[in-house]
């Protein structure tokens, strides 16, 4: 309901604007219209991405945003791109549901002279202006390195994995294993909790029943880490175990770090703010790199009030 109202009114306004505004780039005082197509707004992380884009755009008076929600339907998303092209927007930002079906519409948009920034998930080939995304392998590796440091090179760790048929799950797993390689960290128990908190809790209960000593739990997302924490708390062992998660949404993972529930959480950046920065550069005629890999931040109980610490390489 809200999103429907939220999109139809701005579209109406945007269309009127597009018809009256000139299509050629002029002075910086000109207002640019940017169309954003999000593959779905069911995942809180994507809601956060849109929120980040909006926050960044609101700071620039010369940007008008048009948001569209594809509700996880690739056909709808194709239509979004085509609609943006015929409306003559100045730039398109897209977070595609799937690579293959969106490749051609994006290519056509670029051909029509509209730059396209691809966020978080890729399209195939190279016919886009810029790809901005985070690197789950890097995040997993950084998590592993931090854990090695924190445990002093040895310890018993439980790994609670996200859906292992998805790329983020696989990357956060392989990255982590690479990060702890060479150390004496032992993964005594691992299970697929499918990103879900209740499932993580169940698996943690089993781990607790089976092992008297657990030093740390590494979960592929914050809800998983939280579920593991609750299981440990019910068993009275939360003080003996450390918890590490990934995502670091401000009202979830970061909050858990502030409350001391998580010892560390690594940010999986949405790239929303960066997208607006890059968009403005493009609209001003500057060159931008083809690929921008976002860095991450790590929030620990010590540094969370200070806003965390950045890790990994960034632009």
């Amino acid at each position, binding site marked *: 309901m809200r999103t429907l109202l939220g999109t139809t009114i701005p579209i109406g306004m945007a269309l009127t604007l597009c018809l009256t505004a000139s299509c050629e780039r002029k002075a910086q005082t000109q207002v640019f219209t940017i169309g954003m197509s999000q593959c779905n707004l069911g995942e809180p992380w994507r809601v956060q991405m849109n929120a980040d884009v909006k926050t960044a755009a609101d700071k620039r008076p010369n940007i008008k945003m048009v948001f569209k929600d594809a509700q996880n339907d690739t056909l709808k998303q194709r239509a979004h791109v085509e609609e943006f092209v015929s409306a003559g927007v100045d730039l398109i930002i897209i977070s595609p549901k799937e690579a293959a079906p969106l490749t051609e519409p994006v290519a056509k948009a670029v051909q029509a002279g509209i730059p396209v920034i691809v966020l978080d998930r890729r399209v195939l080939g190279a016919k886009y202006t810029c790809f901005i995304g985070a690197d789950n392998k890097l995040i997993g590796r950084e998590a592993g390195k931090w854990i090695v440091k924190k445990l002093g090179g040895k310890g018993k760790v439980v790994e609670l994995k996200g859906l292992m048929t998805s790329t983020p799950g696989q990357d956060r797993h392989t990255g982590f294993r690479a990060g702890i390689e060479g150390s004496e960290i032992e993964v005594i128990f691992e299970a697929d909790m499918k990103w879900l908190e209740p499932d993580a809790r169940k698996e943690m209960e089993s781990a607790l*029943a089976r092992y008297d000593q657990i030093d740390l739990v590494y979960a592929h997302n914050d809800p998983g880490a*939280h579920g593991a924490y609750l299981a440990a708390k019910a068993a009275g062992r939360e003080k003996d175990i450390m918890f590490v998660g990934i995502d670091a949404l401000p009202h979830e993972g970061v909050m858990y770090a502030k409350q001391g529930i998580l010892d560390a959480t690594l940010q999986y950046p949405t790239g929303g703010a960066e997208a607006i920065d890059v968009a403005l550069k493009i609209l001003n005629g500057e060159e931008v790199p083809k690929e921008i890999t976002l860095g991450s931040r790590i929030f620990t109980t010590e540094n969370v009030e200070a806003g965390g610490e950045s890790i990994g390489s960034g632009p």
Partner: protein
Amino acid sequence: MSGELKSIPSLSPAHEAWWREALRNPIFTAAVAFGLVLVLGLIFSGDGAFYKWGTHRDALRQASVYGILACGMTVVIITAGIDLSVGSVLALVAVSFSILSIHWGWSPWLAIPACLAVGTACGAVTGGIIARFAIQPFIVTLSMMVFARGMAKYVSGGMKVSTAVQGADGTYSYVDVPGIFRLIDSRLLGENLSVVSLIFLACVVVSWIGLSRLRWGRYVYAIGGNEAAARLSGVPVGVMKVAAYGLAGLFAAVAGICQAAQEQQGDPETGMAYELSAIAIVVIGGTNLMGGRGGIGLTLLGTLIIGYIEKILSINAVAEANRLMLTGAIIVAAVLIQRRRV
């Protein structure tokens, strides 16, 4: 003629093997199936984890939410219907309970009845449509499943409703987890029984009383046994259907409250596909999908069977793919044990 009954010789042979007769009793066969699962656990004990009481307490805890859903589902299935919406109603109530308790600070004495009313209302609407327009329960409850999920997302704004409250200026402040959440997610009897397990057992008792001791229970069995004959005997079929689905909605609400307490948040995406687990539990317990027979005792055993299978696979850290295959195989075995060979 006085009330003296004439007896006729029994139709079956006089000496029937006791075990053959016992196998015809569905409770017995369900118990046997559960016993076999326990034996599996004793063998594959996950480094001795199965011998600890904590494992059993946890197995019961993790199965409780599904079990609560299965209680309502049992009633609906006995009327020869089905309810695919209970997972979504669970989510809607989880979200509502979180908003009321965490964000609006309502007392549990207000929040809980309000949430139970929401769940019951969803169920009653479904039952009303089924009864009034004679549409297949599958379709109507499927629609409610989608609708309730949408409502959950709308009410929650698409985000999890947690102890992080967003102020008007966009910053977050953090409130404590409400006492009622902590209470539901705690343990009793010296750490030996989870409160949600107790709630589940209470639902079992209430359903059992209803189905076997109350008038509406008799009506429910009659409608499932032969709806035409029931209607022609004056059973209020329409009202009873609304009541049956309303009850399923009520139990879904109870499950939603428990779920929210255990997650310490209201997640609009929670409860996905829980209805399928509930149906599996009822069927594995031995209640027939055709309606007219079965009962809550069977559902309790079905909950334990499924819960323990999951637990055994979990403590043995079985890989996900193998888990799915093994679960499927064990379910088929459990059902075969219970085939009625009358």
